[in-house]
């Protein structure tokens, strides 16, 4: 097996970052050499739809252009012992002209939720515009393409996995998908959807499911319209997912979300008039990881020895990417893989942030965690909470909105509680059925309910190690931020979640990772790795007060940093672009 090179090749347009390989940007005759030079880890190959067809009707998988021969690429990778993973677009891809839609189908420009045309600067300073995925011609052509692709993979015996990719960007702390659209195509199909839904409502005699939007009259309030637009967007997103799943059959692995640094409208204007803001990119990487989204730097230019490359390599290429592409490594007992430390798992109704009220940020929780448990939490979509052992085994504290509970989710939440897990439930807007079921569960199991009044009414229930705390979130929204922060401080203090005191000057980014201890580390219950990055052009100070059960084991990859270890604390001074990782062993 050829040994991969340890450093990323800079300025090679075929390798724009994090092991992504743009096969159409280089000659097929150079593929072997390039794959050999690619850093260790899986090679990510995004599929460029438009490169395989101009019309959406006829497809080229190497019959005309050798660079379109994906089977050849897979075979070369196998020959040199490299793992290839294909990323198939489920939304427009921002690094491709027209978002990757074939030339003859690129007719209706997509507009973002502010009705502004998507404009994205790529790493070669070209402006990419996106094409609406709500254009029915685009959808029909997409179905054809994925069916052909699936057939081609089967016939050519390509054994690599294909992941569907929902591409997006960061806006006001939320991941927003590039499929979001307010173009004329969207408006027309949305009108058709409204008309059909109204007709169905008229014909429907049965009672509607609780919580389901009902289209009652000709005139919708703007709020109702917004909700229905979100729902319609989800329906179309599901159509693309379904097309990919059906078309690719056995090759299809599932969906990953990829967030592109520098890919928002705000970023477009910032990058248009000034250089890249490395501080912001560095923070965005953490925000993406905190939302369980794979960050990608393929849109931004590469700068040698930039701290961002180290951060991406440590947080994405060697941590989040393997976890996402190989779910077996999610097993908390797995000792070879560092996982982002997740003390809190926060399930939000809508991770795209379009509906901004009645969310954990409005309750002050995210502000509190960002202050006291920075980047030790994950914000996920409530739709992603499914029955899996990872929840009953994990020691995270779960936050859930009652209104997101259905029968299955409540059953599983109670299973987590009975297995010794801790849950905080916002019961505002919970459906009557689930509310009654929850109350019945507590009564039937003879569980004592402790009631406390603190800005809202808290119901505290214990069962062995398990804790179930129920509160009214709506009451918190009325408080000023300071009171909300005090609320979460006092409530979470009762859960005894270990907190490490850190003083970091503004601009520094840091993150914790965790893994179980190896047999040779038997003194310790768990291992933690703290990585600190200074993406600024200034000197910055960082200090950590070590709890008594933390033992510093080693310093790793010290770059432009001076460390000073004192009893119970470590002080560090970072020069510009400095970074370091510290490994700790934890005992009970």
């Amino acid at each position: 097996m050829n040994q991969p090179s340890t450093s990323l090749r800079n300025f090679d347009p075929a390798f724009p970052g994090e092991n992504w390989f743009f096969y159409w940007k280089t000659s097929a005759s150079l593929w072997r050499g390039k794959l050999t030079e690619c850093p260790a880890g899986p090679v990510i190959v995004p599929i460029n739809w438009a490169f395989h067809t101009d019309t959406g009707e006829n497809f080229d998988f190497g019959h005309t252009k050798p660079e379109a021969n994906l089977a050849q690429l897979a075979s070369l990778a196998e020959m040199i012992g490299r793992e290839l993973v294909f990323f198939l677009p489920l939304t427009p891809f921002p690094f491709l002209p027209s978002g990757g839609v074939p030339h003859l189908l690129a007719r209706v420009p997509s507009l973002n939720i502010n009705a502004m045309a998507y404009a994205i600067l790529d790493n070669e300073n070209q402006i990419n515009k996106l094409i609406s995925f709500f254009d029915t011609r685009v959808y029909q052509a997409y179905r054809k393409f994925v069916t052909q692709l699936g057939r081609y993979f089967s016939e050519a015996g390509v054994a690599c996995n294909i992941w569907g990719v929902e591409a997006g960007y960061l806006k006001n702390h939320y991941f927003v998908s590039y499929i979001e659209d307010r173009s004329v195509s969207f408006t027309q199909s949305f009108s058709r959807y409204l008309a059909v839904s109204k007709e169905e409502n008229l014909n429907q005699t049965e009672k509607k499911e609780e919580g389901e939007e009902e289209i009652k009259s000709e005139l919708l309030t703007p709020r109702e319209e917004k909700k229905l637009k979100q729902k319609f967007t989800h329906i179309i997103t599901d159509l693309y997912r379904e097309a990919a799943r059906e078309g690719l059959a056995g090759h299809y692995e599932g969906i990953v979300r990829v967030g592109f640094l520098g890919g928002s409208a705000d970023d477009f204007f910032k990058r248009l008039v000034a250089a890249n803001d490395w501080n912001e990119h560095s923070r965005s990487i953490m925000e993406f990881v905190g939302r369980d989204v794979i960050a990608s730097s393929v849109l931004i230019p590469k700068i040698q020895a930039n701290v961002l490359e180290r951060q991406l390599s440590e947080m994405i290429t060697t941590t989040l990417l393997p976890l996402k592409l190989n779910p077996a490594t999610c097993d908390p007992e797995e000792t070879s893989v560092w996982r982002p430390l997740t003390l809190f798992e926060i399930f939000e109704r809508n991770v795209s942030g379009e509906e901004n009220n009645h969310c954990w940020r409005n309750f002050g929780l995210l502000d509190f965690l960002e202050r006291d448990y920075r980047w030790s939490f994950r914000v996920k979509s409530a739709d992603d909470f499914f029955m899996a052992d990872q929840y009953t085994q994990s020691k995270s504290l779960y936050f859930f909105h009652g209104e997101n509970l259905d029968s299955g989710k409540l059953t599983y939440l109670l299973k987590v509680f009975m297995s010794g897990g801790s849950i905080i439930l916002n019961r505002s807007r919970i459906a009557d059925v689930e509310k009654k079921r929850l109350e019945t569960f507590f009564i039937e199991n003879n569980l004592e309910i402790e009631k406390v009044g603190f800005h809202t009414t808290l119901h505290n229930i214990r069962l062995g190690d398990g804790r179930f705390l129920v509160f009214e979130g709506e009451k918190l929204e009325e408080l000023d931020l300071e009171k909300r922060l005090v609320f979460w401080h006092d409530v979470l203090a009762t859960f005894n979640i270990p907190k490490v005191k850190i003083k970091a000057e503004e601009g520094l980014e840091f993150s914790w990772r965790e893994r179980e201890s190896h047999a040779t580390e038997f003194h310790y219950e768990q291992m933690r790795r703290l990585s600190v990055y200074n993406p600024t052009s200034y000197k910055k100070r960082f200090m950590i007060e070590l709890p008594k059960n933390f033992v510093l084991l080693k310093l790793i990859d010290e770059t432009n940093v001076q460390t000073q270890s004192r009893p119970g604390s470590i002080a560090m001074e970072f020069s510009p672009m400095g970074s370091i990782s510290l490994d700790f062993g934890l005992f009970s």
Partner: protein
Amino acid sequence: MANIDTVFMIYSYLSREELGLERIDNEASAYYLLYVFEENSLLPRNELVKIYNDTAPLKMPSELPESYIGPFENLKDLNQYAFALCDTQNANQVALVSLQNFNETIKTANTPSDFKQILLEHSNLLANPDKDKKKSLFGKLFN
């Protein structure tokens, strides 16, 4: 103060609901600025807000999403704000671009320089009549 050639202002006509704010009865839609930038930088929001508070007849809602400046009841108020901004920035001109024009412009632009050039051609240009009329002490010393 540095000499600026053109300040670009991209604006849109929006209702409160479109801005994600609670609806207020009888409150009509208004113009809002989405992006304000010159050749080398985005103009700092605090400066834009200060000029708004000093010159605009309407009050900026405290809950307005951070990227917006407004409301401007009509184009006259928006132009007035543009002149005030032009003056403060000592810019030669302001290019006012509606969101619709931006969306048209971007279709044909492939690079940032293309884009700025085409944007200029599709904007409502307001020249600064007071440019260099009143000079600051620094201006008097160095110009």
